[in-house]
Each structure stands twice: as C-alpha cells, then as structure tokens.
C-alpha cells in the first residue's frame, strides 16, 4: 500500500515536472530557435546570466518574469467571469490528459510491480478525447466573452473547426482499436513489442489521418485560422495579457506533447525499441542483477519513449514553419469531404483485412 502510494506520487511528480517544468518552457524556446534556423536567422540569443546565454535558453525565464509583471487586462465590455475562466478551462485538460499516456512498461522492482502510467484506465483513449474536447469550451468562451470582433471571429472559427476535426479524429482511431482490440493505452503499447506490429504498419492510413486531425484540433499551422495573426490579430486570445495569455500558449505546447505521446503510443511502438523485445532487453542488462536489470530496462524504455515524443514534437514544429495557412473553406472541405470518408474507408479496409487474414 505504501509502495503503491510512493509509486503513484513519484509518477505524478515526474510527469508534471516533465510537462509543466520542462516541455512547456523549453518548447517556447524551441519554436523560436527552430523558426530562426529554418528562416536563416539567429533567433533568441540575448538574455544572459553573468554573460552566459546558453544558446538563448534563458529567454524562457526572462519571458516568464516579464509576463508576470504585466497588467491583467480585461476590456470594459467583457464578461469578467468567463474571461477569467476561459484560460483555466484551456489549461487544465492540457496538463491532465497526459495522465493516461504510458511512458514505460511494467517492471518488477524489489518485489513490487511498477506500471509506468499515472492512471491505467480501461477507457484510456476515450479519456483523452473527453478531456481534449473540453479545450473547445475554453477557446469558444475566450472568443465570446472578450466582446471584441477579432476574438469573436476567432472563437467562431475555432468552434466549427475543432468540432469538425473531433468527428474525424474519433473515427480514425477506430481502426487502431479494431486491430489491437483494446481502449487501454498500456495494452496497446504492450502489443507493439514486435517491430512489425507497430501501429504504423498495421494502420498507415490511420496514422496520417490521425496526425492531421490532431494538428488541426490543436489549431496549429496550417490549421491556425482561429488565431490567424495576419487577419485576426491573435484570434480568440486577442484581449488577453499577462499570465492568462501564457496559459493559452502553455496549453498549446502541452497539447503538442500529448499528441506526440499518443501518436507514439498508438502508432510507433510506445516505449519499445525497434527489434528489441522486453526479454532481450532484460537479458542484456542482467549484469546489474535482477533488480538492477529491471531498473535499467525501465530507464531505457522511458528514454526511448521520450526520444520518440521529441521526434514528433520536432515534426510538428517543422510542419508549423513549412506550410502556409489553409483558407477556412479548405479546412472544412478537408475535414468533411476527405478525412471523414477516408476514415470510414479505413474502418472498412481494416475490418476486411483483419477478418480475411
């Protein structure tokens, strides 16, 4: 019982500090630095502590301090309550969705079963969708409560876009569930021990559709029409300043991390190294003793998982700075006339292939 408690607390502290303490601030820096790299600029490099610039990493710290000293602005006509609650609704699901994403397998440490996921829910994927849809409320409320034309337009566009892509995303994932026969993310991860059973080989179309929908759901370029800065100033968060602005920004980055984690879990073998089964890994590490081997295997798997996550973060950032923004009619056409029918076709093909083979 005490061991369980310690395990749970350790996992929660790890995930929370990894996401809020590491990924959120560092991704702010990565986005600036990568865009600079891709556009042949230098990027953030001025903030320094005693002459050390750490290739611009201190900019995240400097920005945090600066933004803390900013005024919390609420326009006169705004609905004060909803204006304040909107960033809250955006950020809470973004932080807590990662609770069901497994970042490692099961290990036997000192006679205690360690399962590297905060909450091993039997409805894992549904939990992710449930929380991800809550973010829509935050965005729509932010746009509506500001009483600004830019915000209202941004909120409207966001509501229609996020609802549409949620339908397509819900249907694309069904192929994966059919193949693995489970909604539990740890089980889906464990079934991908064999390299050729990775989701990407079983569901190639599903991966492309899901990744597209996920980027659109997160309102990133090329689907960033709700916050299109060249036409809507900043879209639904035009009237936000200070830490409330940062909360939308953090929610976006944490959703990038969560999307990468889910793509890794569903399609890219979760915590498994390619061509290495759990047994092989344990036998290679036997020199450290039974507990030591389990511990080292755990470290290797967690590192593998986060390496894959970082790859997909990089991929999303590259897409962000490569593609131009789609028009609104193009976005809606892509969703309803291409992704949705393709998702249905994917279910049909998956069903036929699984049953015939």
């Amino acid at each position, binding site marked *: 019982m005490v061991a369980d408690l310690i395990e749970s607390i350790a996992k929660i502290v790890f995930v929370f500090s990894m996401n809020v303490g590491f990924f959120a601030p560092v991704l702010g820096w990565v986005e600036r630095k990568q865009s600079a790299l891709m556009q042949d600029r230098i990027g953030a490099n001025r903030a320094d502590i005693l002459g050390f610039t750490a290739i611009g990493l201190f900019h995240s710290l400097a920005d945090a301090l600066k933004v803390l000293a900013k005024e919390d602005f609420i326009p006169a006509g705004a609905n004060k309550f909803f204006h304040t609650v909107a960033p*809250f609704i955006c*950020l809470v699901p973004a932080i807590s969705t990662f609770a069901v994403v497994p970042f490692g397998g099961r290990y036997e440490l000192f006679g205690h079963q360690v399962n590297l996921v905060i909450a091993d829910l039997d409805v894992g994927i549904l939990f992710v969708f449930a929380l991800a849809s809550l973010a829509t409320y935050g965005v729509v409320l932010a746009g509506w409560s500001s009483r600004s*034309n830019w*915000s209202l337009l941004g909120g409207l566009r966001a509501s229609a876009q996020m609802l549409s892509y949620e339908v397509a995303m819900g249907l694309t994932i069904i192929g994966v569930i059919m193949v693995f026969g489970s909604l539990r993310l740890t089980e889906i991860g464990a079934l991908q021990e064999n390299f050729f059973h990775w989701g990407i080989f079983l569901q190639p179309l599903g991966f492309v559709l899901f990744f597209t929908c996920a980027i659109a759901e997160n309102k990133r370029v090329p689907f960033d029409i709700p916050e299109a800065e060249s036409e809507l100033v900043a879209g639904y968060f035009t009237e936000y300043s200070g830490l409330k602005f940062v909360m939308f920004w953090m929610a976006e980055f944490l959703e990038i991390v969560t999307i990468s984690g889910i793509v890794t879990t569903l399609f890219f073998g979760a915590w498994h190294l390619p061509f290495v089964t759990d047994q092989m890994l344990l036998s290679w590490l036997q020199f450290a003793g039974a507990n030591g081997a389990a511990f080292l295997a755990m470290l290797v798997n967690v590192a593998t998982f986060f390496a894959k996550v970082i790859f997909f973060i990089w991929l999303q950032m590259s897409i962000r700075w490569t593609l131009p923004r789609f028009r609104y*009619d193009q976005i809606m056409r892509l969703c309803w006339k291409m992704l949705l029918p393709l998702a249905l076709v994917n279910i049909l093909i998956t069903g036929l292939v699984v049953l015939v083979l």
Partner: protein
Amino acid sequence: MNEYISVLIMLFLAAATAAGMIVATSLIGPKIEFADKMEPFECGESQIVSSKRRFSVKFYLVALFFVIFDIEAVFVYPWAVLFKDLGWFGFVEMMIFIAILTIGLIYVWRRGALEWE
C-alpha cells in the same frame, strides 16, 4: 490504489496550477484604467461595430453535424473493441450501420451544407 484517484490528483494539480497563475496575474502587475484603454482592441480605432451581432448560420449547422456524427462514432467504439470476437456477423452489421451514416453524409454533402463560399 484506484486508478481514478490518480486522475483526480492530476486534475487537482492542473487546476491548482491554472488557478495559481490566474491569481498571480491578477495580484501582480499594474492596474491603470481609463476609458480609451478599456475598449476592445480594434487596431487603434474606436470600435466601429459591436461584437454582439449575428453571425453565419453555417456555424450552427456544423455544430448540428457534430452532434449527429459524433454520437454515431461513439456507437462504433464498443464494437471496435469486441471486433475480433464478433467476427463476420458483427462486421456486416456494423457496415450496414456505417452505410446509413454515409447516406447521411452524402445527403448533407449534396444539399450543399458543407460548402463555404
């Protein structure tokens, strides 16, 4: 330990972080109010049109489609989990269901409800 307790702890932590940020930003920082500043942002101009106006019915339509198609998607989830146990019978049944869904989609499409001009 019940898995949902961990979820609750995570939700509580997230809520505490978010609430802490809101409280911090409303306590720290200057508070200067005057009429011109409190207007909604309109690129430096006074607001010309109120934002309390009507908007295109298209957005409502999308919300309606969402309810219809998402509920149908929810029906497919339990089937997908049990798909291998149900075999051909379940597959054919679900394909009939999805065919009906597709007819709905084709109808919506043909009526031009998915066009944005």
